[in-house]
């Protein structure tokens, strides 16, 4: 199997990663601990897109308010839809990033970075790129944590059960 095929076959890991972030953010009160022991706060912002892999183009876009609390979102999960895009709010220390993460590609779009302190062009470049690379590293840290669970059969079995239970509870009791 060539690399291209491997890339295509594993795109669902990105979509599963988004669902896992949503689940963990909800049950852990938005707090994640990275492998270096530092904590980040990650919350679903006001935009969530779910897509059906069975029926092409069947898409549920939930925006405004708290889409991750809506019954529609959990119903879409119950119907087998996967999370294709999710707007996230990520905080570490005093810094906050807001961005849309794409499941299939792990692209970051519409990223808002913390306010810059510098004015000069070259300093601005270093600061902007530093903040871009920092959020990228945080996402990688979270993805690494997800993979350590997803690729361990025992850990994943427990996680699976937790996710199914969570979806059922939320679909039954979430806000309209």
């Amino acid at each position: 199997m060539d690399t291209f095929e491997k890339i295509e076959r594993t795109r669902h890991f990105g979509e599963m990663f988004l669902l896992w972030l949503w689940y963990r953010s909800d049950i852990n009160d938005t707090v994640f601990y990275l492998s270096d022991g530092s904590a980040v706060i990650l919350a679903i912002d006001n935009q969530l897109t779910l897509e059906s892999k069975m029926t092409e183009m069947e898409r549920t876009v939930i925006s405004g308010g708290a889409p991750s609390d809506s019954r529609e979102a959990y119903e879409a999960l119950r119907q087998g839809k996967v999370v294709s895009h999710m707007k996230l709010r990520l905080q570490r220390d005093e810094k906050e990033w807001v961005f849309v993460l794409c499941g299939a590609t792990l692209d970051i779009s519409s990223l808002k970075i913390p306010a810059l302190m510098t004015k000069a062009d070259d300093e601005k470049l270093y600061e902007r790129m530093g903040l871009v690379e920092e959020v990228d590293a945080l996402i990688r840290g979270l993805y690494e944590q997800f993979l350590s669970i997803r690729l361990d059969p025992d850990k994943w079995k427990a996680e699976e059960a937790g996710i199914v239970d969570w979806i059922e509870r939320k679909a039954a009791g979430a806000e309209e």
Partner: protein
Amino acid sequence: MGSLEGGLSFRTFYVEGEPPNDFQEAYLAHLTNHFFEPLTPMGEEERSVGWVPTQDPIADGFRRDQVFFNQFIVFSMRIDKWALPAPWVKALTRQAIAERLPELEEKEAERQKAEGKLRPSAKLSKREKDKIKLEVITNIKHKILPAMKVIDVVWNISECTVRFWSTSQAVCDEFAELFEATFGLALHQDSPFLMAKQLGLEEKELDTMVNAEPWHPDFQ
């Protein structure tokens, strides 16, 4: 834009291969070899793609201090294309044909008469009409500027990553092709698989990923 100001939507690429020791000299020459070439009204090209300085996308060359910032190499991909106003092309072509029709018809009728046709019917050929349309388009191109798109590129040479400020698949593919042609280095777009590889997962774990089926919750 994106690296210095404006929106931040980007795709990450991994660069395969090491930069040479004199990479500043070599890469500046490579960028210059693939510098953007402007479109001209008389030219046949409808679209042009090449590299430009991020800080001055209409400059006619690179300065070293615009490109190298410690571990970062910064430049932009400029894409120009003629965006002709279709209603104007149509209206002006119709007008030009109407203006020249009597003269052209007269010539055609005379030619047919000379050939001995008793009832000459002169119609403007498709070729003639296309020629007039081309003249109209060239005139319009003299009056407008091409549509310009400038997309930033930031290459972190120590991390072997490139960030490209677009998430459009078609534009990303064109960028990767131009990058490879320019520097002779292969680029790979980030993905769940490549990110896992980059994180240092072992071959066995990567194989597990490849063989895993998509997970769907089972609500039995």
